[in-house]
């Protein structure tokens, strides 16, 4: 597993360099490396440091955050369909962001107030509020993962409905802006949107790794893990908070990038050939998917294709291929 993690790390660095050179200007990888160590021309510095680097770094961080969040939720819920989305994070963030875009565009004073907070912050507030509600509704002297998933699905549907309603009655320009945000894109990122994600990752990743043993033990069921000395409910709350914060940070920076939190942990798990998604490797695979997808969109495909579309189009078939290729009987 260590080898897989190291390979993924190298791959992420290579993809990041490709991401820096991908695009309209004629940069080579040596140029990019030279500029990164401070030996480039002023022109190259502008392109690399100010334009490309924030976007590539944001892609790496967003992908890593989503990958780790996905690994955490899939493991604690013992269900690969349990992405952070089912905790209500993404749908809450989407509703917050769309409400800000749509209502601020209209004559609603509340909307103007929301937008003045900044779109990322509104998205984060929406994410935290909805996941707190989902967790609260799932609480019954403790949180059971099935109950949490079902309530999360219900909440996601309800919030999605409200989001659609807002878009349907919005002005066409606002609706377009909202739809663009909902796809998930790195086109609007700058250094200021990178820092919050970086801080969250630096703080949360060690906590997530520290929960690793408990995550392994809870695979034996709540009762056995209690018997082995895991404080199951406290552990579960810590894991959920980690996943929610990481996802909220990622979504606030880029919008909801589809499929990464679902597919990255599963790819990492299959590459490492282990029973549950490895946390660090899942983060690295997520980083590769998002940065690679964005590089592909800029360097190869015509027009400005948002990364969220690429991740869904490439990530999903890759997972299906992984599933069909392996003959051993294993549950998804």
């Amino acid at each position, binding site marked *: 597993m260590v080898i897989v993690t190291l390979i993924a790390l190298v791959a992420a660095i290579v993809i990041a360099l490709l991401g820096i050179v991908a695009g309209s200007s004629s940069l080579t990888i040596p140029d990019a490396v030279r500029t990164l160590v401070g030996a480039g021309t002023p022109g190259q510095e502008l392109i690399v440091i100010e334009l490309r680097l924030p976007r590539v770094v944001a892609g790496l961080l967003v992908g890593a955050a989503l990958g780790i969040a996905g690994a955490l939720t899939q493991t604690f819920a013992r269900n690969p369909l349990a992405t952070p989305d089912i905790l209500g994070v993404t749908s809450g963030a989407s509703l917050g962001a769309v409400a800000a875009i749509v209502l601020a565009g209209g004559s609603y004073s509340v909307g103007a107030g929301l937008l003045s907070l900044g779109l990322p912050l509104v998205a984060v507030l929406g994410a935290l509020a909805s996941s707190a509600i989902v967790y609260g509704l799932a609480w019954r002297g403790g949180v059971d993962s099935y109950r949490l998933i079902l309530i999360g699905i219900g909440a996601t549907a309800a919030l999605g409905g409200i989001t659609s309603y807002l878009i349907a009655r919005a002005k066409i320009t606002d609706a377009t802006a909202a739809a663009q945000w909902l796809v998930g894109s790195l086109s609007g990122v700058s250094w200021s949107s990178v820092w919050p994600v970086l801080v969250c990752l630096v703080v949360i990743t060690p906590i997530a790794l520290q929960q690793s043993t408990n995550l392994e033990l809870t*695979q*034996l069921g709540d*009762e056995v893990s209690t*018997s*082995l*000395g895991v*404080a199951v409910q406290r552990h579960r709350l810590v894991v959920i908070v980690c996943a929610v914060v990481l996802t909220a940070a990622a979504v606030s920076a880029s919008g909801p990038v589809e499929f990464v939190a679902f597919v990255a942990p599963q790819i990492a798990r299959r590459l490492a050939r*282990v*029973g549950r998604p490895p946390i660090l490797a899942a983060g690295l695979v997520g980083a590769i998917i998002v940065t690679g997808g964005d590089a592909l969109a800029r360097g190869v495909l015509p027009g400005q294709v948002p990364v969220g579309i690429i991740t869904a189009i490439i990530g999903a078939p890759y997972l299906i291929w992984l599933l069909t290729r392996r003959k051993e009987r294993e549950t998804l």
Partner: protein
Amino acid sequence: MSETRTDAAARLTATGTATATGPVPALEARGLTLAYDRSVVFERLDLSIEAGTVTTLIGANGSGKSTLLKAFGRILQPSAGTVRLDGRPVREFATREVARRLAILPQKPLTPSATSVRDLVSRGRHPHQSMLKPWTPRDTEVVDAALAATGLAELAGRDAGSLSGGQLQRAWIALVLAQEAPTILLDEPTTFLDLSHQLDVLELVRSINRERGATVVMVLHDLSLAGRYSDRLVVVGGGRVLADGAPWEVLTPDILRSAFDLEALVVPDPSSGSPLVVPALRPESTSDFRWPSANRPDARGLSTAETPGEVDGTRG
């Protein structure tokens, strides 16, 4: 580990919570009320489990045997009352400390994917480890011993998901053994096993008790096996303890009738001398139920549409 135990013992004598007479019970329920949502299963139950004994909880389906075991194993929080472990309320211990003293094997543990038998059993060592004290050679020794005791040494490298029902159950018991807890709770450890494997499991339980002095509380459905392998039987039903005592005191026709609605003879088991419960032949006319004539299965398993009122010919 021995240090913490003496600590606990010292504190115990200091606070004077132990009863003046007799040793401290391994487990004790005091005024225990257990409920799921609003349906109360036990109300103000008192039950004390003496250290170093094998106690089996028996009772009809839905009588609350497993519920009581879960409360002892702190999986179910009581609505009122306390569970005391080694003389102290279980909630006063740190969760890992409880895990070093008490192990519980539930009815349906989840088998993890892509995990070898050895890895599964090794997880029993978790309560003995910490950041400062990771895996030691002694942990390996204990896991090896647990695998050997359960006859799994040769299957140690196999994927746990590929084991048969009997092998898997032994693997779970090996995990409990590796935990080295002096008090062990087993919820129907013999379910899904054939008779020979049931005996394997119960012999193993007996030897853990005899050789290590472990306290065992289990739930069993087979009354005769319960009688053969237990020092004490506790019959529960209707939210209380219906009978409590040595196997010959508890497995009587009267108690079986009231607790299980079962007419039975109790005779000495020719092989062990323990009480053997032999269900009495039920009279044929106790039920008014008749198969609808068109679908009534006959003795050969064929469906016939013959004359109604024909007497069932399978007995006699």
